[in-house]
């Protein structure tokens, strides 16, 4: 006889477990199996084109990868891509959030238009930009430049990484805007009015009230974007294929080249492990922050 039956809650331990079991089991498999395999492969000689050569490779894959200039180029590109996109989207997103927080005619529609790029699939946005916007002779940007008497830019050959940054920033700016705008709406109007009574102008209000209020939302934006931006793939895949040369190859694309073009499973896996480690450094901070949020 259990004294706890009446509430149906303390016997819940078992019930909780059984209700959660499917989700937990699947995610556990999803996490452990591929992760374990990646780790295992990264210590193996494993090339699909050379089935004869197999066996334990020790750290050789890592050594090969880490001494490969392509890796460092790719790492550099990854950091540049992440850094620039973050800078553009966070600063731009904050300013836009302030703008779209103001009351104006048709604000609702303008807001919807401004966040739209986020819902466009990456292959579409990359190709629209590559062709219709940035094409050296027929693109809108070239036409604009020529109509004010400037030479047209051949974006993807002369400024390849910049072009990718522009495309990706265009996709993620709305994300920052959307989140920061939502965060802004939870700002207590009374606080702003109190500040105004204290003699704060719009600029002072922005720096002393709005920005501190957005601090948490901004860090969430930074971390979530980082996780996605570290592994940007489709945009590169459909525009530059990592080129010219290695100019736009990031870590994700390099792994793809090694795995599915060179069929070098071992090296690709070693690259995968590095990507996981990088992402986890960010993830730790994000999870910590969400955890803190859960407590409240």
């Amino acid at each position: 006889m259990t004294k706890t039956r009446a509430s149906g809650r303390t016997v819940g331990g078992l019930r909780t477990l059984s209700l959660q079991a499917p989700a937990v089991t699947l995610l556990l498999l999803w996490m452990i199996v591929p992760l374990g395999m990646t780790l295992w492969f990264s210590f193996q000689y494993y090339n699909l084109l050379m089935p004869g050569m197999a066996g334990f490779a020790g750290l050789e894959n890592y050594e090969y990868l880490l001494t490969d200039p392509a890796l460092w180029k790719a790492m550099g590109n990854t950091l540049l891509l992440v850094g620039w996109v973050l800078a553009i989207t966070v600063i731009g997103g904050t300013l836009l959030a302030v703008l779209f927080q103001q009351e104006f005619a048709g604000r609702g529609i303008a807001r919807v238009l401004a966040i739209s790029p986020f819902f466009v699939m990456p292959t579409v946005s990359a190709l629209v930009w590559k062709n219709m916007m940035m094409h050296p002779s027929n693109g809108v940007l070239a036409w604009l430049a020529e109509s004010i008497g400037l030479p047209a830019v051949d974006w993807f050959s002369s400024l390849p990484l910049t072009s990718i940054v522009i495309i990706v920033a265009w996709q993620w700016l709305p994300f920052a805007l959307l989140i920061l705008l939502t965060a802004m709406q939870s700002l207590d109007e009374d606080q702003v009015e109190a500040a105004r009574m204290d003699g704060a102008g719009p600029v002072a209000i922005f720096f002393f009230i709005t920005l501190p209020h957005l601090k948490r939302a901004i860090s969430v934006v930074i971390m979530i974007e980082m996780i996605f931006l570290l592994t940007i793939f489709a945009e590169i895949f459909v525009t530059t294929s990592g080129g010219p040369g290695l100019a736009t190859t990031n870590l994700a694309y390099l792994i793809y080249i090694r795995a599915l073009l060179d069929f070098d499973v071992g090296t690709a896996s070693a690259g995968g492990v590095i990507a996981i480690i990088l992402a986890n450094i960010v993830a730790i901070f994000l999870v910590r922050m969400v955890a803190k949020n859960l407590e409240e």
Partner: protein
Amino acid sequence: MATLQLHNITKRFGDTEVIKGIDLEVNDREFVVFVGPSGCGKSTLMRMIAGLESATDGDILIDGQRINDVGPADRGLAMVFQSYALYPHMTVEGNMGFSMRLAGVPKEERRAKVLEAAKILQLEPLLDRKPKALSGGQRQRVAIGRAIVRNPSIFLFDEPLSNLDAALRVQMRIELARLHDELDATMIYVTHDQIEAMTMADKIVVLHDGVVEQVGSPMALYHHPRNRFVAGFIGSPKMNFLPVTLTGVAPGGVGIRLPGGGERSIPVDGARLEESAALELGVRPEHLVLDEQGPLSGEIKVLERLGGQTSLYVQMDDELVTIMADGHVAYRVNDTVHFGFVPERAHLFDASGLALPSLQQHPLAGLTRHDNRAPGSPSEEPA
């Protein structure tokens, strides 16, 4: 028609004990109010009676049957929640009839019962509305209607009036009292508001830190608080407490020296006092009288004129004493006032905070709300 008994009820959440062994008896058709400051465990106690929370230890008996292991729906109880907890996607009729729908009662019968309850609560014109389209007071009545429909042996109310504005609260208070008479049911009511407790209860249970401080009729609690906590909690404005020294114990009362030097004898039983014990005098603001010859004096710090009455806040050494005086007093702030009190209206508390028992029972101490309505009927719970 039901009685409720609690034997040594204990509740622990993890390592914290929130209810520390409570014994209680609720008689048939009684209106019992659990009152106490927030966090005293009154809501937890009610939720255990309801079956929404399990008791860690002890027995809950309804009509003599142990019901610890009976599910909440099968205890014959109905509960009115603080938030009303109406089902927002159902109409008033749907809300009130939900329990019967679950029990498979046919539609016509359901409707008849809902109509019956709606009539008592004047809800008939609202039956097709959703809760969103109702005012606070109407929602409250629907919540009560949902309870009535179940025809429970005991009604449970969890701070039902705390979401209403002051005027509506007074009105609902009256309505609930009327309902109690009409339904002739046992009711248990949780509140932190001592005015609700005083006005509605047959029996008040004062809870503090998970223990029962005192059980009794409203007048018994007011006139004979068992300890300093109850004395301070019941009555508004709060009772004044002054440190006094013991001068002697006689059969007719306890002699004390007041701050300022005056001496008085308070008619309480001081047999258990030791010599020169530290005592505290408790006098309610309404029992302090302005008197030029009074033994106490101090400077007025704040004056609150309510029209009919005036509250004086008087500084006496370290204590700020509240006096409820007549509305016509002409004092101003910073005036010095002299005042005194009738010894029969004063209370003495020993160092542990326990009241010294009065030598005389107050004539109204045994009175309950029902006695107010039907004079002469025997009181249910002589204190």
